[in-house]
């Protein structure tokens, strides 16, 4: 049978792990089949299912950029069974990958516009892929600004990226933590408050935000105050998923399945969905 088996993961090898924070670990993986790795492609915002054989699968955004395809990067916050087992893995260990799954950021429609990234905690992961993609296609976009916040300096992930992001002249980067901490040279304050101070213009702009629900709630309010319309704001949703291909029936919000219709939604789209986040 030549039919595609959507449940069959591709064996892959962990090339490198990075302990980002006490609870977040990044995995760089490569598909074992060189031909499949060569032909692999995805769009920024799409997700993948990572298998730890014996523990099962869980869904993570591919947070590397499709413009840099020597590996796929996933950042995993330790929370449940699969993520705990993933955290126990090291370079050379085997995983399974089912990717790409889901929809992606409408990066074509965003061309020519200013982009405001607002990420909180692990919510920076889905933003990273789009940010890297846009930096690699820099001419296509207007002003790019990034507001990335975490509870404390130790909770800041993607530390390897931060020097570049803060140093670049073709983007504005603001890093913030919730409370003063020794040695912290950047901003202090909650993301929504810092955002209001940054006051990005909504004119011809798009905001892309991801983070914990409470941050999203207040960030959305702040964006509204700044004049951003619902159709100018994008986020990615998370749900418990199993199949990742719209069949198993648990990630739906009304008739929309986060695994195939998402994870990326504009706030205009979310407003149309029943309230069951």
């Amino acid at each position, binding site marked *: *049978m030549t*039919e*595609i*088996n*959507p*449940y*069959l*993961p591709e*064996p892959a090898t962990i090339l490198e792990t990075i302990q980002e924070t006490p609870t977040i670990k990044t995995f760089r993986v490569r598909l074992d089949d060189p031909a499949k790795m060569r032909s692999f492609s995805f769009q920024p915002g799409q997700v993948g299912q990572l298998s730890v*054989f*014996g*523990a*099962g*699968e*869980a869904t993570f955004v591919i947070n590397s950029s499709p413009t840099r395809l020597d590996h796929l990067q996933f950042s995993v916050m330790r*929370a*449940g*069974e699969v*993520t705990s087992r993933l955290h126990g893995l090291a370079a*050379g*260990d*085997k995983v*399974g990958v089912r990717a790409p799954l889901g929809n992606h950021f409408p990066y074509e429609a965003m061309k020519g516009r200013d982009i405001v990234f607002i990420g909180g905690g692990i919510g920076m992961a889905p933003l990273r892929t789009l940010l890297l993609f846009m930096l690699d296609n820099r001419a296509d976009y207007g002003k790019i600004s990034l507001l990335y916040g975490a509870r404390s300096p130790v909770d800041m992930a993607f530390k390897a990226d931060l020097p570049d992001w803060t140093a670049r002249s073709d983007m504005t980067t603001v890093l913030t933590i919730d409370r003063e901490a020794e040695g912290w040279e950047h901003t202090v304050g909650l993301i929504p408050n810092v955002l209001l101070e940054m006051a990005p213009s909504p004119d011809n702009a798009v905001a892309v935000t991801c983070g914990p*629900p409470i941050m999203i709630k207040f960030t959305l309010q702040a964006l509204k105050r700044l004049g951003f319309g619902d159709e100018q704001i994008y986020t990615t949703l*998370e*749900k*418990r998923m*199993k*199949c990742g*291909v*719209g*069949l*198993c*029936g*648990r*990630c*739906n*919000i*009304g*008739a929309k399945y986060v695994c*195939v219709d998402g994870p990326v939604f504009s706030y205009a789209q979310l407003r149309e969905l*029943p*309230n*069951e*986040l």
Partner: protein
Amino acid sequence: MSAAAYLPAPRLGEWLKELSGRYLVLAPQARGDTVVFAPFTGDAEPVLDRDAAMPPKQAVFPATEELLRYRRVKDPEDPGKVDVEVSASLRAVETVVFGAKPCGARGFLAYDRVFRSPAISDPYYAARRAKTLFITMACAAPGNSCFCHWVGSGPSDSSGSDILLTPVADGFVVQAVNERGEELMNSPLLEPAGTREAKAREIQDAAAKALPAAPDISRAKDSLMAVFEDLAFWEEVSAKCISCGACTYLCPTCYCFDIGDEDKGMSGRRLRTWDNCMSFRFTLEASGHNPRPTKAHRLRNRVGHKFSYYPALHGGAVACCGCGRCVRLCPVSVDIREIVLAAIARAARVREESAHD
């Protein structure tokens, strides 16, 4: 379409034995006080005088099935290095489901739209579905919990079946629904139906007429969305629900599943199992957040999925075949018909009230 045939009742066992030579034949059989579909062995006659507790859904969608196997292989040169080999498991045997009611066979039409859609084909489902034939028994009289006619079906609906049997005096009128059914009828045990065919039609018509008038549930899709945020409504209609999974597992159209690994030594299996949207853990996220934290939220999703979300995605078709098992076998008699009608009434009242404002 070939002419109808007649199978005298005493030859039923023989016909099933004959089919058993070529197919795995699943037939309704007594187990304790209940009736379930089980492989026909010839030791006992199939039970046709009452409905099976379970629909025949295991025939195409087993409670547990193996999706794949994996094996860890140690590198002999470097025992710290372990490779993983993954292989898909796909087993499907030629099967005949005998003696399901039209509703039970028709349940798979709801599956087909999901598991064999233009967007995706589930190879496990597709393989079994292609190899499973249905010899269905028309209903002569409706049961108290039956409501197939609410959802566009009827007691002799042959959609989803390959052969339709109608019980007549001393036997069955056998009608092929499609070519695959015709092939199955190629047996010396069957004889021409003659005038019995007309008799079968009479019985079918009488069964359809015996059903009480069906209410109009065309508004269910929009009404369920209209009352979505009315949690007081959902708390009221779910108050007596004990949040078990009987309704989902007994349902011929419920297809939600879980996937998990069973690990043993250096190898293991990835299994798909039936899952149950009435369970707290169904949507529980690793963070501890649960978008459907109470049985009210969960029952809302179950009813909403069947009568609103699914129809929105599949051209108005509801994900319910009206078999009534969820009503009849619920330990506390939660009645999905009542809930759908209550939602329609509630939405209509809200509409009226807002029109008056």
